[in-house]
């Protein structure tokens, strides 16, 4: 496979101005991967600052209800409340190694923006976060959190005013300022080497899960489930299991249903296209224009997906399913009540699929759900959706 490609997917479809920055990034990343000093510092930050390893929680109540053994990988307990910090600490440290003086990022649900703001504060790098204007409203708490952490939040009023436009705005900033700025991409998307870098930094989730489940159960799980927007938490937990006999399921945003056209399920309902620097699956029209997407979970509201997922779909190694807004909201409540854990609406998609998939497992079957983030940020939103009725 060609460097920077996942099967036919991936690549570097960017303006010429950015190529030097991508080449520099690739070289730096190659160097730091071999640098024990970098690994030591990153391990220290992940352990002492971020709170790794995160628990693999056995859910007794849900297991009883569903008739199989359900575990949650608790990325919601990571500092900042989501898996995002694994990647932002890694990349922020890398930016320091590269001598960059400023971080920019884009965010949908706000979790990546918060995680970048945290990493920037911890490592002494100023942070600017681009966020679609629509998302700044539905994730107002995270906007405040970012500002509290010293980041500047830049609302993006162009296009659909959501995540994809925030990514475009961040790319423009990067083109203009690439000598001093590192673009801290938040998911396993974008041009090479970003999908690789993000996957590697997120693989800690799957490596821990693999070790933990072997310790607890003496065997690997039957099924691992994770939600997929751009796909970083999913690739992080899947990657260490790819060579194993474990069913891997990525759950996309089915929105109001795949037939409604209002969803974010690029793998389930998209076609192959070039978008924001990579060849992957894309929700697009006949001319190649990206379509507007919809999800109750802002972090899944994106028309494309990481190129490695595209390859894993084609090869059949990972199955991709879609879950509707309604199913995700139901799972949001159900996990809250049965286990006392409020999931992020993104993670609730994975939980919702687990509720469905449990039927296929017997009582000894082991199901691991990646709980990619906590739902505090979504509580007000969900309350508004239902007139304050929980």
């Amino acid at each position, binding site marked *: 496979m060609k460097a920077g490609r996942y099967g036919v997917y991936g*690549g*570097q*479809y*960017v*303006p*010429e*101005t*950015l*190529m*030097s*920055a991508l*080449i520099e990034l690739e070289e730096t990343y190659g160097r730091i991967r071999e640098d024990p000093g970098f690994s030591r510092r990153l391990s220290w930050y992940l352990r002492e600052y971020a709170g790794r390893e995160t628990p693999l929680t056995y859910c007794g109540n849900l297991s009883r209800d569903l008739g199989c053994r359900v575990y949650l990988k608790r990325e919601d307990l990571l500092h900042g409340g989501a898996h995002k910090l694994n990647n932002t600490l890694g990349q922020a440290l890398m930016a320091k190694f590269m001598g960059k003086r400023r971080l920019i990022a884009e965010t949908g649900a706000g979790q990546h923006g918060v995680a970048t703001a945290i990493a920037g504060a911890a490592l002494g790098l100023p942070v600017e976060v681009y966020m679609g204007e629509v998302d700044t409203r539905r994730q107002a708490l995270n906007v405040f959190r970012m500002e509290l952490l010293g980041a500047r939040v830049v609302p993006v009023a*162009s*296009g659909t005013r959501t995540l*994809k436009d925030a990514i*475009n705005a961040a*790319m*423009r900033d990067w*083109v*203009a*300022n*690439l*000598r001093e700025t590192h673009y801290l991409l938040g998911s396993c998307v974008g041009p090479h080497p970003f999908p690789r870098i993000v996957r590697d930094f997120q693989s800690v989730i799957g490596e821990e899960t693999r070790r933990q489940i072997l310790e607890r159960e003496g065997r690997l799980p039957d099924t691992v489930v994770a939600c997929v927007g751009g796909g970083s938490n999913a690739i992080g937990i899947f990657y260490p299991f790819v060579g194993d006999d474990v069913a891997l399921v990525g759950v996309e945003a089915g929105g109001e249903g795949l037939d409604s056209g209002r969803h974010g399920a690029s793998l389930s309902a998209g076609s*192959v*296209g*070039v*978008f*924001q*620097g990579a*060849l992957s699956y*894309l929700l*697009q029209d*006949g*001319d*190649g*224009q*990206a379509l507007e997407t919809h999800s109750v979970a802002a972090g899944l509201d994106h028309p494309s997906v990481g190129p490695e997922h595209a390859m894993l779909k084609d090869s059949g190694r990972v199955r991709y399913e879609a879950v509707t807004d309604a199913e995700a909201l139901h799972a949001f409540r159900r996990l809250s009540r049965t286990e006392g854990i409020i999931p992020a609406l993104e993670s609730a998609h994975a939980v919702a699929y687990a509720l469905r998939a449990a039927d296929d497992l017997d009582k000894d079957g082991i199901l691991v759900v990646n709980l990619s983030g906590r739902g505090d940020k979504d509580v007000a939103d969900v309350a508004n959706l239902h007139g304050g009725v929980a």
Partner: protein
Amino acid sequence: MSRIDALFARSPAFIGFTVAGDPGIEASLRVAKAMIEAGVDLLEIAIPYSDPVADGPVIERAHVRALRAGTTTDDVFALVRRIREHAPALPLVLFTYHNIIHRRGPDRFFSEAAAAGADGVLIVDLPVEESGEVAPCAARYGIDRIALIAPTTSPERQHAILSGASGFVYLISLEGVTGERDRLPPGIAGLVGAVREKTGLPLAVGFGVSRPEHVRTVVAAGANGVIVGSALVRLIEEHAGDEAGMQDALRAAIAALRRGLVPDPEPDIP
């Protein structure tokens, strides 16, 4: 001799940029005609795209206007055909993002572009490393693939890019997206000089070029042409709903910018 070669044989050239379908597809034809009448030597026509990441806010809004007006790639080819009928000798270059080509299939895209009368295609997000699929299709239909070189492009990459280029070379003047700037970066003369040593192709400078004095600077540096986009697109936006005013403004701006192509006359010394 191709229309592009013929043009640069009598350079320097003034290259104007417009987004097809901005503000609407019919109005777009009238905009192109006004620009041609005002003296553009080559017209660069963008195919509107939903996510134009290399463009600044002014041109991005033009993409949005064109898409909202319902412009499709078929419409753009039809527009090119009509401009070609109107101006048979004028070189026309399509400016596009790669997914437009990928979606249509490169062979079909280039065959339709050639049939419509386009002379060149500039793919703003397709670096030389990714152009393997596209290059033979462009060649098959006699379309020049306009190469882009940025201030950040290393000498080795310049070499690789130039080896597959034809028509002319588009030099990006600055590190950033398209858009008007108060002044051009001081390194522009050096970039023109460095690339000039490596290729016999004509060099045209774009991004940020928006004032007669910029045009003068670029031509003095030895470039064979200038490309002006945002400064013209802004006039279309500012004169929304007043088409006569829009055309007058475009004519006046192009005339003023063109004056920069001519060296300053020697001052009269008594």
